[in-house]
């Protein structure tokens, strides 16, 4: 429950404050969200497996966001930003799907 509260609080803060993003970081926001989503689903699966760990969650969240943004930044500098974003999204998407499948097995036992 504490997790859901935190999520809700973050969304409400974001909607209320509408923080401004520096224009330079604008293109990396969507990819950061996808990377964060991967970390969150991984954490949810670990929670259902009973092996959740705060430190691992924080580290995986921060490193996921930073590495995804960095890969896209590097791609932009090399002129292959679009392709690298696609690659990052494919890899993270596969991970998200397989984690969600595991979560589904936990919840519905199916």
């Amino acid at each position, binding site marked *: 429950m*504490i*997790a859901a*509260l*935190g*999520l*809700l*609080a*973050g*969304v*409400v*803060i*974001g*909607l209320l404050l*509408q*923080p401004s*993003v520096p224009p330079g970081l*604008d293109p990396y*926001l*969507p990819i*950061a*969200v996808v990377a*964060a*989503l991967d*970390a*969150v689903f*991984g*954490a949810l*699966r*670990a*929670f259902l*497996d*009973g*092996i*959740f*760990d*705060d*430190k*691992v*969650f*924080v*580290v*995986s*969240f921060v490193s996921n*966001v930073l590495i995804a943004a960095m890969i896209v930044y590097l791609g932009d500098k090399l002129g292959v930003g679009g392709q690298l974003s696609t690659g990052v999204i494919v*890899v993270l998407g*596969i*991970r*998200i799907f*397989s*984690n969600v499948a*595991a979560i589904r097995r936990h919840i519905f036992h199916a």
Partner: protein
Amino acid sequence: MAADSRGTPPSPPSLPPQAVMGLLDYLTATSLDQDYAAAARRRSEQDPAAPSGRPGRVALVVLAVFGLLVATAALRTSHSAAQSASSRSSLIEQVNQHKQQLAQRRSTLRSLQSEVARLQSRDLAATSQGRAVDARLTRLGVLAGSAPTRGPGIQVVVDDAPGATSDKQRVQAPDLQKLVNGLWQSGAEAVSINGQRLTSLSAIRDAAEAITVNYSSLRAPYTISAIGNPKTMGATLLDTPGGQTWATLQSTFGLQFAIDTKDSMLLPAAKRVTLRVARNDPSATTPRGGAQ
């Protein structure tokens, strides 16, 4: 067993999984960060009784950050979509505004031009010398294409072959050039294509997909009006190289080509006959000064 292990190449059993698995298999198999399992193992080794697997305050903060991130990204996306829509509509507005302005200025130009022509003819009509100049101007204008011209002649309508698939079955600028050359050759005194009067400054050329005459794009079918002797011009045209080319185009590629005689046609004046750079040479003896 021993024979088996000798038959297969020796493989060290300690190869990391990403070396022996396909990338997709590896991604699916390790979709959960292995650190969770490692941390859980470590924790149970240190203190087997410790309760594990509950998110603490740090997880709350991180999830709040995640929510903030999602909300911000969603807001940014909807904001920039609204922005691009509004900039698009403002661009459309500007285009319409400028179109209107252009139309207004064109109509002003037309009225000014007609006023100039009216004043000119009034001034010239005042004196007998002026009247002579006026007559000469009109004659020269007909010749140069700067004055509307009326007279009998022929009208040639050409078009692409029906259901044309290749460029050869379409009317190209060189085909029109040959046809117009044929018309001049057969005694045309004034020629216009789809209302574009040909002058000494006219070019017939291909511009992208369209044929351009006097810098305006034309659309098929092309109607070429030529003032001249209607009785002979049609027949003479078919004898010229241009006419023969078109007879071949018609029979070989199916291009449409029809000649019609007209008792009276009005050819419009060319829009632009102003010379900006060319000057006459005063030392040369040029006929000037009206009909003496």
